[in-house]
């Protein structure tokens, strides 16, 4: 990503085109959504019965699972095209970079409108909208992980595959997928965690004068908080944590431990992850039988199919090329049509805009930026000392890490309704609450990175510092801060993205029938979408996205490069 100078100069040009294209697509969606009459609202009230909690959890989980499967499929196609088609790479990679840094939550209303209009009067549209939202929140880092894996495969391994005449399918099965597996599993886990964040927000929201609700844990938590039923709220949170912990133990931990074998290292290192579940699975007779009797013949059959079937098919190349040509023509035509419609919609929207609105949006972006900075500062202020302390004391690290991981796994959006209710009860406006909410969403990224950085300080450097009698602030300045700097920057980049996203839910809160807002672009976006000011919504969203992209390019990326070059310990 942070590649050589040439790719950078190329990408800034591509960025422009892509930015425009994205804007066009959004305004297309808005144009289309506003053309049609509004569909019927969602739904009845959410039941707070305890008995329904498992069902709620199952609903929420299924939405996540479907979104994840779509993400996985999309990841394969996108990463493959980007890695193997140089022409596609020029477009897809800058696009990926932008999409990664755009705050997804601001698209919530747009996406919703489009889907509700697609399936008027049914739950399907709302469900699809929440799934699409989760998908857009979790897919990008998975794509990046696979793409990065594909392009970093060592030349020797690739040449082995070529010289042994592996078919493309076999290459994928034995080389490409295994090589990228570690990154893919890790990022899937991250994506799933990010997915909870969006799901909680997407299950219950108001749009215009309509209230849309989906049966699930997110809506359960919001309803309970709205009604001030703390027992229910707590139980809802507990079931969410339970689902997350079970997922972690039954799926992610075994997967991580399993993916250890795909590491490229050639020395037997200490295994990083242990999973009892995986050990049980590996020893199970049933699984062994399934492997030899089902999996192996299946792989053989697929090998055979792709080895024999594909080349024969490819021989009729004239037919294939003409089909590809047809597809290409259709796609081009579709793009031109979409751009045209989007442009028309955009002009229509722009006509209803004035300078005053623009000014307000810019000021609001500034206000939110300030809030993001304050929340980052608060997070850094407490996580750096604590993280360094944990990292330098491995004994505590062992026992504290699982606890903090569980704490971090609870999506901030799940805590928002309860926290907002609590803050209003205790007094103190949304001004304060919104910053607190942002901190809640960002601190963990920083904490974990700081812990990782501090525990990676080599023993000899620590000993040298001790020998020279370095103390207090001196040891911080010469050893600790430089050593954790790259990790801190990595954490801040992720945390910054999280804070921008959180601003949309944190600056505009509906509680007990009242709407509380504070001045900021997130609040503005939420307000515009609720009141149907789509022109302002589009402009606010694009200014917000632009701000995030610019900050990433101008601040984080140079800092990151400096961190990896100057302060890297390897």
């Amino acid at each position, binding site marked *: 990503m942070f590649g*050589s*100078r*040439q790719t950078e100069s190329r990408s800034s040009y591509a960025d422009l085109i892509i930015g425009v294209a994205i804007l066009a697509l959004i305004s297309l969606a808005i144009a289309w959504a506003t053309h049609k009459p509004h569909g019927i609202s969602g739904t009845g009230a959410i039941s707070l019965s305890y008995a329904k909690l498992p069902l709620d959890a199952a609903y929420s989980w299924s939405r996540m699972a479907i979104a994840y499967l779509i993400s996985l499929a999309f990841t394969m196609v996108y990463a493959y095209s980007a890695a193997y088609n140089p022409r596609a790479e020029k477009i897809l990679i800058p696009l990926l970079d932008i999409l990664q840094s755009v705050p997804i939550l601001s698209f919530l209303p747009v996406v919703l409108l489009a889907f509700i209009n697609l399936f008027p009067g049914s739950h399907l549209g709302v469900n699809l909208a929440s799934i699409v939202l989760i998908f857009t929140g979790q897919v990008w880092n998975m794509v990046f992980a696979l793409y990065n894996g594909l392009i970093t495969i*060592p030349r*020797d*391994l690739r*040449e*082995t595959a*070529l*010289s*042994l*005449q*592996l*078919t493309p399918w*076999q290459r994928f099965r*034995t*080389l490409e997928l*295994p090589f990228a*597996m570690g990154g893919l599993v890790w990022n899937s886990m991250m994506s799933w965690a990010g997915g909870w964040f969006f799901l909680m927000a997407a299950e219950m929201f108001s749009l215009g004068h309509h209230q849309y609700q989906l049966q699930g844990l997110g809506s359960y938590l919001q309803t309970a908080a709205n009604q001030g039923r703390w027992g229910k709220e707590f139980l809802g949170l507990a079931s969410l944590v339970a689902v997350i912990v079970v997922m972690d133990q039954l799926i992610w931990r075994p997967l991580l431990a399993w993916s250890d*074998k*795909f*590491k*490229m*290292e*050639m*020395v*037997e290192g200490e295994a990083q992850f242990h999973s009892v579940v995986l050990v049980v699975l590996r020893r199970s007779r049933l699984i062994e039988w399934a492997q030899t009797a089902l999996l*192996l013949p299946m792989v*053989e059959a697929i*090998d*055979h199919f792709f*080895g*024999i079937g594909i080349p024969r098919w490819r021989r009729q190349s004239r037919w294939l090329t003409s089909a590809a040509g047809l597809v290409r023509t259709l796609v081009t035509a579709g793009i031109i049509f979409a751009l045209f419609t989007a442009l028309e919609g955009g002009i229509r929207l722009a006509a209803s805009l004035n300078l005053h609105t623009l000014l307000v949006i810019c000021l609001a972006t500034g206000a939110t930026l300030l809030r993001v900075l304050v929340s980052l500062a608060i997070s850094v202020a407490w996580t750096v000392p604590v993280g360094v302390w944990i990292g330098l004391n491995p004994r505590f690290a062992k026992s504290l890490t699982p606890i903090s991981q569980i704490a971090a796994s609870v999506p901030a959006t799940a805590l928002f309704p309860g926290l907002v209710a609590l803050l209003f009860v205790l007094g103190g406006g949304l001004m304060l609450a919104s910053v607190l909410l942002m901190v809640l969403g960002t601190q963990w990224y920083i904490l974990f990175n700081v812990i990782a950085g501090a525990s990676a300080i080599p023993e000899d450097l620590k000993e040298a510092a001790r020998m020279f009698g370095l103390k207090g602030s001196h040891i911080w300045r010469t050893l600790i801060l430089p050593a954790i700097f790259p990790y801190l920057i990595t954490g801040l980049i992720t945390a910054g993205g999280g804070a921008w996203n959180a601003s949309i839910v944190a600056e505009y809160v509906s509680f007990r029938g009242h709407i509380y807002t504070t001045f900021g672009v997130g609040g503005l976006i939420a307000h515009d979408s609720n009141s149907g000011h789509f022109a302002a919504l589009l402009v606010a969203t694009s200014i917000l996205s632009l701000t995030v992209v610019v900050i990433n390019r101008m601040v984080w990326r140079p800092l990151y490069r400096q961190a990896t070059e*100057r302060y890297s310990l390897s």
Partner: protein
Amino acid sequence: MTIHRGTTSEPLVKLLGVTKMYSQPDNYDILVLDDINLTIERGQFVALLGPSGSGKSTLLRIITGLSEPSYGSVLYRGRPVTGPNPHASMVFQSFALYPWLTVQQNVELGLTAKGVPLAARHEKALRLIDLIGLNGYEDAFPKELSGGMRQRVGFARALAVDPELLCMDEPFSALDFLTAENLRSELLDLWVDSKIPLQAILMVTHGIEEAVYMADRIVILSKNPARVAEDLTIALPYPRNRKSPDFVHLVDQVYKIVTDTDEDHKPVSISSPAGSPQKPEESERARLDPIPYGHLSMLSGLLELVSDRGGRDDLYHLGSELLLEVDDLLPVTDTAELFHLARVSEGDLILTEQGKVFAEVDVAERKAIIRKELLDIPLFRLIGRVLESKTNHAMVRDFFIDILEEHFSQDQAERQLMLAINWGRFADLFHYDTDTELLYLAEDQLPEAEATLLGQGQADS
């Protein structure tokens, strides 16, 4: 040796004017291989010998069809090679095993690709694992094996597909001495006794002894760009004895050829080539020759050693004594020649008068000598000129990289400048700030000060 493999008039591999260029973004192409013509007959064990960076690995990849020549063609049994050659297989320096596959799965990889049924695949893989002496390790993962065992798997994997041509890219250089020796003789046994149905072996190496020990033909490549400099037949009978006078004599002879080849392509073109006076900008560009990648500390050590031995020593002896391959030694001797401290002739390193002085004096005076020599090298003249003419006497690194990239590949340009900065810092010619990426002159390095300082240095010595 007797040729016991199928003899037909047609050669196994024929290279016709193979040329490889790497195109640069700014249209300056780097020539790597220049008009290589080569024929490999059935029954031959050919070693491709050349200094590092001579493009021998590139040539190997072109022969196996992994890479395409820019011009010229490769014929395999008379047919042009257009993709990875199914009759050739590769053994890599890095072993290139798939770490997530077991030994057996790795060996079966090529068979899977051929669509060999499961049972036959297992049987064949087990037989090969037996042959290379790894029975019992079928279910082990590569990371559980030692380096030598890993390369055995590499051989088994390459041999499993019954190749006619075995291509090896420095197969023993990542192994320790004893392991490598063991594996070499085992491979030779398999080859000489025809236990494997191979038609020919092609091995890329920079080890002269290794080539003389194993091959019956050595093709020596020159550097920048690679051409065939010499094609030798090694007629010693197998098994070869490294101690025998014939062997030692042959190694010495090859050593001389390799060092002389290096000599011919040394950066000497300070003057513009004759016959192109009408193109001054062309000759200006031709002047930036690569500086050799010699470590200055190694240079000092080597010169002191040779000076203690009377100012002249045999390079082959020096190399084997210091456990250095000719590849590691040549950049250092190149540097010594560039600084006029020594010259190489007939495989010997001979100190010049300046070299003898250099070996005797202390660090400060050594720095003065190198500074004087650096000022004669075009790259350093260029850097000096730029820094002196700027009012703030500073210039960003990328400026010089851009200039260098018109003469070298991107990687090479970076390496050249890094080396230049290193030498410049050593000789106190200019400073470099890593954070700002600026090359700059300090107060005492300014032109006027430079002159007086130099004068003092000469007065001192």
